[in-house]
Each structure stands twice: as structure tokens, then as C-alpha cells.
């Protein structure tokens, strides 16, 4: 459009010329003749339009162009050209319309808000708005009529239905008439209204009436209506009278009904009370009223204070209890299985539920303890309350005069008295009581003979206590086994000093390990108490030297304990098997093994062979007895002769026990793929036994165990297959070729991780929005500032103007005054 070069003025001129606003071809340059002739349409508006058009044309000064680098042809890039001025203008305008309006109306309350339908909806035309409004109004009316339909209800006034009272007593508007009679009387309608005139031949006698003139008829009608009105008034008065009578009588009747009969006052409704008060103010004395009021108030108060009975659980039937019990056990069993596999027992869907129920599962239930209450009644001579002991000495003092059979009752009573649910401090008390009870048991088992019946009774209580205070119980057990481990390690390192003393655990340590395995689940994959305990037992079996029969029994006891711990989870304990095989070697009849090399298997075997355990000759022993625990414990507790473990009878028992345990382990590990490797040594050792050293019964027993082992091995060998552990997708070879993207575009995101990409996108969006918001807020504040300044300036100019005018007046007055004085002075006036 405009030529480049030249001053702005020149360019303007040329532009205007081109647009034919000025110069040749412009209206002003035309002669009048031309104007009239040639272009009659060209009038003033035309020029205006032209100027407007020019104004709207893009001014290069208003354009802002971003220079693009590496421009690609044919690609459209947004935002290269911008019109900041225009944009700003638009923004300012918009703010003026919204922000400034809001600011102006700030702190201003009131005003009219047009809430009519569609007032703010520009999409609706006026007609539509009106139509809709009408429809709404209709609807509103309609719905209102149904809700608050006054006509249906019998509203009364002075006991008379409002419908009966006619405000408009004009006869033609009366509603009192029968519907079919209408306002005009029947005859008139029949005869004077539509079609009435056609029936004259039927009613001949009435034809005379027909002859009445119109005026007569009208008079008759008026007279009749007047009569009706009068009658109506009479009826109404009569009704009124009856109504009043009835009202007066009603109070008496009501009094009769509401009179109290047997002291218990049926609760009067509020209305009735109110009415009572209003009606009987004359007759009843004031005292009476106050009495009644009191009764009422009392009643209300009672009602307010009376606690509502809550709905209770109904008493469960036996089946339901059993079912619940079963479900609980099933749930616990599932949790146990999950733990056995090393999974989190509560990661199921219903974990929250389970968690909630788990805590309330057993001993937290206060009723739970009372189940075993039945044998409580036999111990009359016992006290019923005991303090909760905090030390073993205190507890022993309490139990001073108590028989062993009654100790568990004492413990029970202590537990009931200090049940965890009864008081908050009881938890602390029980946390102290638990170690005391454990220490008591461990203290008692050092006696001779070991009071097994007593501890059998107490273990249930220990179990319950552990359920109640699991954390402190865990700490107790862990600290105990840590001490045991430290002792063992210490003794092992100083083994040269005390050779005679057995390294195996003492009786109390045995009992501790046993109780530990009863109160904690032994099948868990990992358990903070059981796992170290197992490790400790294995260490005993692996590292304690096996030098005499006592050690052997200790080891067998430990093996049995460990076997029982693994009944469910069937985990492999190499140490136990090693111990049993070593025992088999040690117990082998004399002359079975001539050299170390001839001993089968790969279990560890120290070169120091202990000949004391060799079976010499047991052909005379018919059958083997089980190992005697009381004998063992008395020797362990230092009260027995160790020689009881030094005869063939004992050795045979030990051998049979060992074989039995081996068989048990073999059955347990039957499923594991290497079970034949595990138990091959055992059957080989038994094979080498010279069976003629045993009596026939023993021979048969050994043979049957051997056969079992053989059978299990055969079975396991048959069922096992070569390992196929690596059924994964093959591991891809690492590639070093750079990865290229076909049709790569810089605008696309090639993030392989969808989630990450999503997140990044969201982040970018957030950033953008934030920036935008900040920018907008800045602009807002700028706009507000401008506005404020402008206002202040306006105010200032206004003020200045006013002051100026005032000053002007004052100056002129002053001037006039001076002029006057001057004139006076010079005597002009």
C-alpha cells in the first residue's frame, strides 16, 4: 500500500491519495457538475468509510515479527507475527469491562439483580424469553395450587367453613346454590334459556305463564333471589348459634376425656395443654394449672434426658459362633500361608478389614478369658485378688503358700484382675508381668524333677499374654536368645578350658525355645523371633561337640523341636540332618566302620571319633524304650548320674530315636528334588550295620525304617526331572546401533514411558498456566494502577479548577476592592 521511504507525513499523503480521499478523484476535487452528474452515490459516507478502512489496515509499526531461524517452507509456525498494540488494547478494553467494573462496585452493597428467567442469556430472543417466563409462571401456579390448595381444606372462621361464608352476597355470584340449580332458578333456565321456548305444546297449562312480560319475569327473578338471600341469612345465623353452643360444650366433653384416671397422666399434647389453659382459666384454680404444667415439663425433660436404648447385637446362635470361629481360623490360616511364602499377609484387597479384625481376634476379647473359668470354683482356699507382680521375687512371694496345681489359677486370676481392657495401666502391668511369668517358668524347670504338668498348665497363659502384649513379649524372647547365642559363642571360643561341660542348651533354654516355637508361628518365611531362634538351634546342632550320651539326647531333642517347627513349611535344615547322620555313625555297632573313608555321605565328620557311643552288643535287649526325659532333665539340672547314658540299653533307645527322627525328616522332605541326595547317607549307614548285633524285634524295626527310606528315595528319584529354571524370554543381546526414529518430528514427544510422558505433559501445562496467570495478574495490577492514577489526576484537575475559579472570584473581588479604595483615596468617590 504505502511506498517505502519518505516521511510519515508524505506517506500518509500518498496513501490518502491512493485511496482517493484527497487529490485527483476525490470528492473535493470533483466539480459540482461532476458531483451531480457522474457519481451521485458518492456522498459523505463514502469518504468516512474509506478512512475507516484505512485505519483498519495493518500499520507496519504495529506489527511485531519474530525472525525465524532455519525456516522450512510450507510449515506454518504460530506466533511469528503479532500485533502487540492491538492485543494490549483488547486486553485493556476487556479489563475495563470486567475488572474495573468489579473494582468500582467493590465495597458497594445492594442494587438490583435481575433474576428473571433468561435475562442474562443472550442466546434467547425476547419472544422466547417471554414465552418461557409465562410457562414457568403457569407451572408455578399450578404446583402451588396442588400443594397449598386452600379450597380442599376446610378453613373455618368462627367454626364455620370459609366456603360456607360468602363474601359476595350477590345472587349471581353465590356459591351456595346447588351446582345443577345454577344461579338463576330452574324454571327460568328451563323456560327462558336456550331451547326452552320450543317445548310449548307439551306444557299447555304453563303456556299462561309464558304470557308474562319481560319486566314481570325480571321482577320475579329479583324477588326470588331476595327471598333466597334472606333464607340463607337465616340458615347461617342458625348455624352460627349451633356452632357457638357446640364450642362451649366441647370443653366439658374434653375435660371428661382427658381427666386422669390412675395418677398416670397421659401426656397431653401441646395443643391440648394450650387449649386447657386458655379454656379453663376461669374454672380451674391457678395451682392446678401449675401442677399440670410441672407434670408436662417434667415429662418433656424426662424425654429429653432419657437415653435411647441402642440396638444390640442379637445373641448369636451356636452355629453362628462356630461359623465365625471357623471363618476367623480360615482367615488366620490364609495369612499364615502368605507369610510362609514370604509375602505380606495384609496386601490383599480386604487387608484393612483383616487388620481391624486381627487385633480383636483372640485375647483382646474380654470374654475370651472366661471360657476357661470353669475350674476356678474348686479352689476355695485361694485368695481372689492378687497384685500384679513386677519382679520374680514378688511373684515367688505370692506363690509362697500356693500348691503347684493352683499356680495356674493364681496366674489366671492375676490376668483377669489386670485385664488389658479394664484399665490403661494394665497394659504396662501385664508387660511387666509377662517376663516375670516366663522367668518363673524358666526358674521352675531347673528343679528336679521338672514340673512338666505345671508348665503345661501355664503355657496357655503365656500364650494369651503374648497375644495381649506382643511387642514386649517379642523383646523378651529376642533378648533371651541373644544372650543364649552370646553364651554359646563365648563357650565355643574357650572350648579348651571347660571340656567336660556340655555346650548344648540347658533345660530352661530348651523350654524357652519350645515355648517360643509355640507362641510364634514357625512356618513364616521370615519372623523376627523364630528365624534367629532357628538359626541358634541349628548352631547348637552344628557346633556343639557330641561327646557323650547327654549331648546326644540334647541334640535329638533339638532335632525333634526343629522338626516340629517345620511340619507345615517343610524347610530344609541341613544341620539337623547332619547331626542325625553323625549320631547314626557314632551309634553304629562296634566294628561297623573301620576307617573314616568307609563312612558314606558328605556330612561333616571330625576325625576325633567318639567310641563311647558305639553300641557294643544289644542282642539281649528285646525292645527299645523311648528316651526318658525326666532322666535327661535330672542329669542336665545336675542331680543325676551321667552314667545312665552310658549303657547299651540307652544307646539302643537313642539309635531307635535317631532312626525315627530320620524317618520323620525323610517323610517331611519327600517332595524336595534333592531328597534322595539328602537321605542317601542314612540308608547307606543302616546298610552297613551288622544286624546280627540286634535282637529280632529291633532288626525288624530297623529294616522297616530302611525300607521306608529306600521307598521314599526311589519315589523322589522317579518323580524328579532335570531342572528348567530359566523359562524366561531370552535375554536380548545388547545392541550398540544408535536408535533412529522414523519421521522424527521435534514437536512430538518420544517418551517410551507413558506415565512419565503424561506427567511431563501435565507439568509443562502447569508451568504454562502458571506463567499465564502471573502475566494476567501483572496486567491486572497495571490496569488498576493506571485507573487509579487517572482518577487521582481527574480529581486533581477538578480540584484545581475549583480552586482557580474560587481564586478568580476572590481576585476579582480583591481587585474591585482595591479599585474602590484607590478611587476613594484619590477622592473619586
Amino acid at each position: 500500500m504505502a511506498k517505502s521511504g519518505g516521511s510519515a507525513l508524505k506517506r500518509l499523503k500518498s496513501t490518502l491519495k491512493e485511496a482517493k480521499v484527497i487529490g485527483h478523484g476525490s470528492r473535493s476535487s470533483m466539480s459540482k457538475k461532476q458531483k451531480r452528474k457522474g457519481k451521485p452515490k458518492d456522498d459523505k459516507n463514502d469518504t468516512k468509510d474509506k478512512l475507516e478502512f484505512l485505519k483498519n489496515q495493518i500499520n507496519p509499526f504495529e506489527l511485531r515479527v519474530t525472525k525465524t531461524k532455519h525456516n522450512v517452507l510450507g510449515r506454518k509456525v504460530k506466533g511469528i507475527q503479532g500485533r502487540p498494540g492491538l492485543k494490549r488494547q483488547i486486553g485493556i478494553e476487556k479489563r475495563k469491562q470486567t475488572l474495573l467494573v468489579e473494582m468500582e462496585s467493590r465495597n458497594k452493597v445492594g442494587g438490583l439483580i435481575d433474576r428473571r428467567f433468561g435475562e442474562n442469556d443472550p442466546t434467547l430472543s425476547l419472544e422466547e424469553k417471554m414465552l418461557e417466563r409465562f410457562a414457568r409462571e403457569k407451572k408455578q401456579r399450578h404446583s402451588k395450587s396442588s400443594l397449598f390448595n386452600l379450597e380442599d381444606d376446610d378453613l373455618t372462621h368462627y367454626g364455620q367453613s370459609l366456603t360456607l361464608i360468602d363474601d359476595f352476597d350477590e345472587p349471581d355470584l353465590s356459591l351456595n346454590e346447588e351446582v345443577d340449580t345454577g344461579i338463576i332458578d330452574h324454571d327460568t333456565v328451563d323456560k327462558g334459556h336456550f331451547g326452552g321456548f320450543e317445548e310449548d305444546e307439551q306444557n299447555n297449562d304453563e303456556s299462561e305463564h309464558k304470557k308474562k312480560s319481560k319486566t314481570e319475569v325480571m321482577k320475579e327473578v329479583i324477588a326470588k333471589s331476595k327471598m333466597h338471600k334472606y333464607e340463607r341469612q337465616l340458615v347461617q345465623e342458625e348455624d352460627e348459634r349451633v356452632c357457638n353452643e357446640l364450642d362451649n360444650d366441647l370443653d366439658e366433653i374434653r375435660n371428661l376425656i382427658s381427666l386422669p384416671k390412675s395418677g398416670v397422666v397421659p401426656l397431653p399434647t401441646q395443643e391440648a395443654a394450650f387449649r386447657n389453659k386458655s379454656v379453663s382459666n376461669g374454672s380451674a384454680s391457678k395451682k392446678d394449672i401449675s401442677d399440670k404444667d410441672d407434670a408436662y415439663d417434667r415429662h418433656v425433660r424426662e424425654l429429653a434426658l432419657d437415653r435411647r436404648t441402642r440396638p444390640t447385637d442379637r445373641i448369636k446362635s451356636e452355629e453362628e459362633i462356630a461359623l465365625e470361629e471357623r471363618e476367623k481360623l480360615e482367615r488366620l490360616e490364609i495369612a499364615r500361608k502368605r507369610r510362609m511364602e514370604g509375602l505380606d499377609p495384609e496386601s490383599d484387597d480386604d487387608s484393612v478389614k483383616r487388620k481391624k479384625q486381627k487385633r480383636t481376634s483372640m485375647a483382646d476379647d474380654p470374654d475370651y478369658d472366661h471360657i476357661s473359668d470353669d475350674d476356678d470354683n474348686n479352689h476355695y482356699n485361694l485368695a481372689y485378688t492378687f497384685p500384679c507382680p513386677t519382679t520374680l521375687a514378688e511373684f515367688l512371694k505370692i506363690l509362697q503358700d500356693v500348691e503347684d496345681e493352683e499356680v495356674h489359677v493364681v496366674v489366671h486370676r492375676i490376668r483377669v484382675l489386670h485385664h488389658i481392657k479394664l484399665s490403661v495401666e494394665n497394659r504396662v502391668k501385664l508387660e511387666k508381668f509377662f517376663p516375670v511369668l516366663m522367668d518363673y517358668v524358666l526358674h521352675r524347670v531347673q528343679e528336679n524333677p521338672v514340673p512338666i504338668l505345671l508348665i503345661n498348665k501355664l503355657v496357655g497363659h503365656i500364650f494369651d499374654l503374648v497375644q495381649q502384649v506382643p511387642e514386649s513379649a517379642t523383646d523378651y524372647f529376642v533378648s533371651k536368645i541373644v544372650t543364649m547365642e552370646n553364651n554359646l559363642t563365648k563357650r565355643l571360643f574357650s572350648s579348651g578350658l571347660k571340656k567336660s561341660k556340655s555346650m548344648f542348651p540347658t533345660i530352661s533354654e530348651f523350654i524357652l525355645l519350645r515355648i517360643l516355637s509355640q507362641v510364634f508361628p514357625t512356618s513364616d518365611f521370615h519372623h523376627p523371633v523364630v528365624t534367629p531362634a532357628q538359626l541358634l538351634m541349628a548352631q547348637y546342632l552344628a557346633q556343639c561337640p557330641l561327646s557323650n550320651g547327654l549331648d546326644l539326647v540334647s541334640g535329638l531333642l533339638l532335632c525333634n523341636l526343629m522338626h516340629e517347627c517345620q511340619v507345615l513349611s517343610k524347610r530344609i535344615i541341613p544341620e539337623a540332618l547332619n547331626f542325625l547322620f553323625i549320631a547314626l555313625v557314632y551309634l553304629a555297632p562296634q566294628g561297623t566302620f573301620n576307617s573314616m573313608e568307609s563312612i558314606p555321605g558328605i556330612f561333616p565328620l571330625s576325625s576325633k571319633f567318639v567310641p563311647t557311643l558305639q553300641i557294643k552288643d544289644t542282642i539281649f535287649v528285646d525292645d527299645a524304650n523311648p528316651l526318658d526325659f525326666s532322666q535327661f532333665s535330672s542329669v542336665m539340672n545336675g542331680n543325676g548320674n551321667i552314667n545312665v547314658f552310658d549303657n547299651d540299653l540307652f544307646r539302643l533307645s537313642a539309635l531307635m530315636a535317631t532312626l525315627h527322627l530320620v524317618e520323620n525328616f525323610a517323610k517331611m522332605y519327600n517332595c524336595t528334588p534333592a531328597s534322595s541326595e539328602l537321605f542317601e547317607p542314612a540308608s547307606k549307614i543302616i546298610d552297613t550295620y551288622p544286624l546280627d548285633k540286634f535282637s529280632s524285634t529291633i532288626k525288624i524295626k530297623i529294616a522297616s525304617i530302611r525300607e521306608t527310606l529306600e521307598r521314599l528315595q526311589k519315589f523322589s528319584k522317579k518323580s524328579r526331572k532335570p531342572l528348567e529354571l530359566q523359562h524366561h524370554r531370552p535375554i536380548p543381546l545388547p545392541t550398540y546401533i544408535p536408535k533412529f526414529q522414523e519421521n522424527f518430528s521435534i514437536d512430538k514427544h518420544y517418551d517410551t514411558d507413558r506415565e512419565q510422558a503424561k506427567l511431563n505433559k501435565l507439568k509443562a501445562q502447569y508451568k504454562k498456566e502458571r506463567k499465564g496467570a502471573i502475566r494476567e495478574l501483572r496486567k491486572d495490577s497495571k490496569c488498576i494502577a493506571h485507573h487509579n492514577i487517572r482518577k487521582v489526576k481527574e480529581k486533581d484537575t477538578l480540584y484545581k479548577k475549583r480552586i482557580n475559579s474560587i481564586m478568580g472570584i476572590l481576585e476579582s473581588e480583591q481587585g474591585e476592592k482595591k479599585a474602590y479604595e484607590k478611587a476613594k483615596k484619590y477622592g473619586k468617590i
Partner: protein
Amino acid sequence: MKDKCNLADRNDTKFSTLLESLENKSPDVIYDAMYALYRAFVPLLSMGELQKPKKIVDQNAAVMCLRDSYIHYVNKLCLFLNHEEPGLQVPSLNILLDLLKIESIYLTTSSGAYYFSNNHFYRIVEGLIDNENFNEHLQTEFIDKYWNKYDDLRFYFLKNAAKIINLATNSGKPKDRSGPISKKKRTNERLDDNKLNNLMENTFSILENLRSMPTDASEIKDFWIGHPTPEIVNKQTSGNNEEEFKDISDEDGGHDMNDKKSHTKSQDKIPPILQLSSHRRVFSDCWLALLKLPMKQESYKKILLIMHKKIIPHMLQPTMLMDYLTESYNAGGAISLLALNGLFTLIHEHNLDYPDFYKKLYNLFDRNLMHVKYRSRFFRLVDLFLSSTHLPVQLVASFIKRMSRLSLTSPPHGIVILIPLIYNLIRRHPSCMVLIHRPYEIKSRTEDGGHINNISEDPYVFDEPDPMNSNAIASSLWELKTLQNHYLPNVATLAKIFQDKFNKPSYNLEDFLDHTYATLFEAETSKKPKKTPALAFEKPNFVFPVCENINNTEQIDAEYQELRNANIMKGWEIFRF
């Protein structure tokens, strides 16, 4: 001269009383007498009064007398080294070494050449190592204060000790060969055994604590008796000078001089005491002499333990140890394991060729291997030996299978060594992958090859001594599958790595070597459980089941009762409570 004579005369009686009091039973008296004599002899010694006189003159009779009492005194002190009371042993050692210093300094200054009074020191060494009461005090005193500090003392000690031991062993042998052994001889023998044992133990306990063996000639710079600087050495011009100075109580005094002479010929400038090679030579000699002695199992193990670090590097010719190590390696058991380290050093650094090394190594994997103390040391080496990728697959497979078999009877800390080792081996030798993954096709192919007839029997032969013939490659590692169900969760988890993808980096075996029951136990108990531990939900009725004999029941119920008891006793049948 006269003065001195008089002085000697005067002191003569005092010396004799003091010397007599050395015979006293009370250690306090001995102690005091010892120091009194020490103070008396020191000035005389530093003036050279007690030296063997050149010419025998009458006036010197007193001097001779003094000299005799001095010799007596020294002998006595050497005996005191053998005393039961450490309070006497330690001061006598100090006094003896001080005397050595004074004497040597006098001789050095008077001759103008470096002189170490070795005859004197020889007796001290003898007193030390041929000693029944060689206790800790004496040992630490000698080692920390003198032996590890002063290069000359160490040098001469090694030299003398080797000599003493060699003498002892040589003297013992001819006796053995001589005809029928009389009772007296037998007691002699026992005495000899005792002596050899003492020599062995004492020398070893000193050698074991050697920390200052020089590795470079420049490190030889600390001397108990002044520095034999080259200037002094240069002054040694003729043999005459040397011969002038004879030791006191000299029988074979020239020994040291002769040595020196021979050295001065070859290396004119540097005396042997300043040469690294001579230090090494005496070191080797001493050790070789020591190793010839009969020794206890414990000392044997200790020697093998320090062999590769403390002995071989300082030997002049480490190959001299070859026979010793080979024999130890063949001994079997823990000795073999320990010998492996020294042997490896010889193979690795000194070009020893050892045939059938891997076969022998394979046979070291015996039933007790995982249970002995030195397993971590052994496995460190095994890891090294098996790190080669050029080993035949059969060999590696045999090792893997054998380890896996052993893991079945191992304690947990043994298993955690074996599993990463096996994992690393399989990673390094992917053809061993069939041991843990043998899909059907591969199996049938091997069956065609005639390797396996029936997979139900493990094709691996454990007792086969040759790893190349054990047929392990046809087997599978069922043992590891079994261990996935080990009672210790750590072990079980570790065993499960064979089921995962084989894309983990190799394990660093060092992380697994030094576990014991104690460390594993501590790891289990030291971490505090985050949540309440799970509890059992079956309430126990008893700790140990007690068989109740119900008397009032009829005989008909006997069967029922038995059944009931069996039920109660389930799992505890082998005991009667």
C-alpha cells in the same frame, strides 16, 4: 696397669660375694646382685679391661681373675633368661644386650672397624630360643624393644638361630641311626625332642612377629651398635687388625671375622650387614632350618597361614619352599587348604609348575570343607583359580556340581559362599547353563549321545576323583532347588537367584566370605521389626506332652487310650515325659 691390678684385687672378693649371691633363691637378691655387678663391670668393659689379653703376664693374673668372674656373670645371665621369673628374665636380657653394645662399641673404636660381638650374642640367642620358660614378657621385650627395631640384632639373630637349630637337628640324627637305643639314650632323645620343640616354638614365636624385614637396602639403617658407615669400613685395611681383637671367652671367635673377610673380598665397600641380599639369606636360612624341625599341628597351620605374606616375599630363593609346600598340599584336610595359598604364590610369581593342579583342587572339596575355619581364605583362592574362562566345561561343571552337593550339608554361612560362586561360574561359562536349565530338546540330544539313560539317577559321580570324568555336565543342580526352601530366609532368597534372569552382574564374593553363625544371627536380631510380629493362633495345651495313664478306665478302653496317647504324643514319640 698396677692400679688396675690393685683395683682388681680389691674388688675380687666383692665380685665373688656378689657372684655367690646370684645363686641365691630369692629373685630380689638376684636382681640386686645382677645390677650391682652390671654397674661394676660396665666401666671396666668400656675401657677394654675385660678383653682377652694379648700376652700372658703374671700381673695379669688379677685381670684374668676379673675376666673369669665376668664370664661367669655372663653365663649366669644367660641362664637367667631361662628363669621362671619374668622379673629376672627381662632385666637379664636388657643387661646382656647392654653389655653386648658396650663391648662391641669398645671393640669397634679400638679397632677402628665395625665389629659386632657375635659370640656374646650367640649365647644370648641360644639362651632365648633354647628356653623352656620363654614367656610373653620376655618375648615382647625382646621383639618390640630390640628385634624389630635394630637391623643388626635381627641379622645376627637369624644367623645364630639358624646355626643353633641346624646344630640341634644334626646332633639328633646320628643318634637315631646308632644301634640299639639304651635307656639313657632314650631319655636323651626325649630331652632332644623337648629341646627341638622349644627351639621350634620359641623361634617361630619370634619369627612370626617379624615386622621390620627390609624390602630395600635403604631401609637398613637402625643399628643397636653404631652404624657401620663406609668410612669405618674403609679403615679396615688389613686382616691383622682384625685378628688383634679377639672376643672374650673366645673359642671360635674368628667366625665372624672370617665371614667378614670373605665378604670384604667380593664387595669391598659394603659390609654384609648393609646388604639386602645377606639379610634375605639369613632369613631364608633361618626359616629353612626351622621348617626342618618337627612341629605341632597348630604351628604348622600358623606357618602356612603367614607363608605367602610374610615368608615368601623375603626369601632369597622362594623355590626352596616348593617341596615343603607340595608335601603340605598333599597332606589333606586343613593343611592342604592352607598350603594352597603359598603354593599359589609360588606358581603365580615364581614359575612353579604344578601338574594336576585342578584335580587336586577338586579333591579338596571334601565333606569337611564348608565347616573348617579357613574356608573363606580357601574360597578367595578358588574364586581366583576358577575365574579363567579357558577352563574346560566338564571341569567347571564338576566344580559346580560338587559345590552344590556340598551345599546340602553346609551351614548357612557356607551356603552363602557357594551360591554366589556357582552363580558367577555359570555366568562365566554359559555352557554350564544346562545344569540349571535343561529343556526337553537338550535332554533328548544328550540321550542320543548316550550320556544319560535314566535321568532319575543322578549322572554325577561324587566319588570320582577326576573332575573330567565325573559326568557332572549331564546332571542338574537339584540341591540348589532344594535350598530354595532353606530355613534361613536369606539363604532361601539367595538360592532363588537361579530362577531369575541371568542378567545380574557377577557377585562380589568378598561380601559373602566372612559370615559365621554369629554374624548371621546378629543380622537377624539387630534390625528392629517395623510392625508387631505375627503370632500363633493355635493355643498350645502343653509344653511337652505327658502321657496320662488313666487308671479308672476299663481294659476295653486300652486301645482307645493308646490311640489317644499316640495322638497327644504326635511328633514327640521318641521321648517319654
